[in-house]
């Protein structure tokens, strides 16, 4: 298949975090995997030894299916113009197996699993404080 040539005049990425990829140029295969445990605590508190991916079913489960190709369609693409032009791209953040790719690729496999845990000191963290209550008419 004759591929496009991508032309981008200007690209602006403000923040790149864990496992973010900015690829300029063609690629053949990308396989990006990302595993996160997010712990949000009411007060800043850090135990260096805690946290283990193996202890959570979500990270070890092999039953979670990944879609496979199921098609009998034979696709034929004709590119009468060999260029894809974009004047300007502005992206604020890029993270967790997120990819910006300028150029053509053949195969991309991205896989991201994120577990979020919240811990509060107060018994009822969603109880309204007196100041919040006074705002309600």
């Amino acid at each position, binding site marked *: 298949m004759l591929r496009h040539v*991508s032309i981008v005049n200007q690209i602006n990425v403000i923040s790149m975090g864990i496992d973010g990829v900015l690829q300029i140029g063609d690629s053949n295969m990308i396989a990006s995997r990302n595993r996160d445990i997010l712990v949000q605590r009411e007060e800043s508190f850090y135990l260096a030894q805690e946290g283990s991916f193996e202890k959570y079913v979500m990270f070890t489960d092999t039953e979670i299916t990944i879609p496979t190709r199921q098609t009998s369609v034979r696709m*034929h693409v004709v590119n009468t113009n060999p260029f894809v032009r974009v004047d300007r791209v*502005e992206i604020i953040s890029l993270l967790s*197996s997120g990819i910006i790719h*300028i150029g053509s*690729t053949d195969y*991309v496999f991205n896989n991201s699993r*994120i577990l979020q845990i919240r811990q509060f*000191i107060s018994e009822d963290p969603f109880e309204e404080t007196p100041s919040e209550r006074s705002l309600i008419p």
Partner: protein
Amino acid sequence: MNFTVVNHEIKVGRIKSAGVSSSALFLIGDANFLILTSILDTPPESLAAGPFVPLVFNVPGTPA
């Protein structure tokens, strides 16, 4: 089944995006085959109140 696509001129002015995350792909160009999967789990068991303790393990997974 045969499927024919004819691409004429592809030209874009300006793209603004707040975030590309969790297995998202922002692609300017061609691709043949893409598999993008993402799971974000916040199970009810993950909400813990009371004094801080180390992370609770063996949190049940989300049913398939």
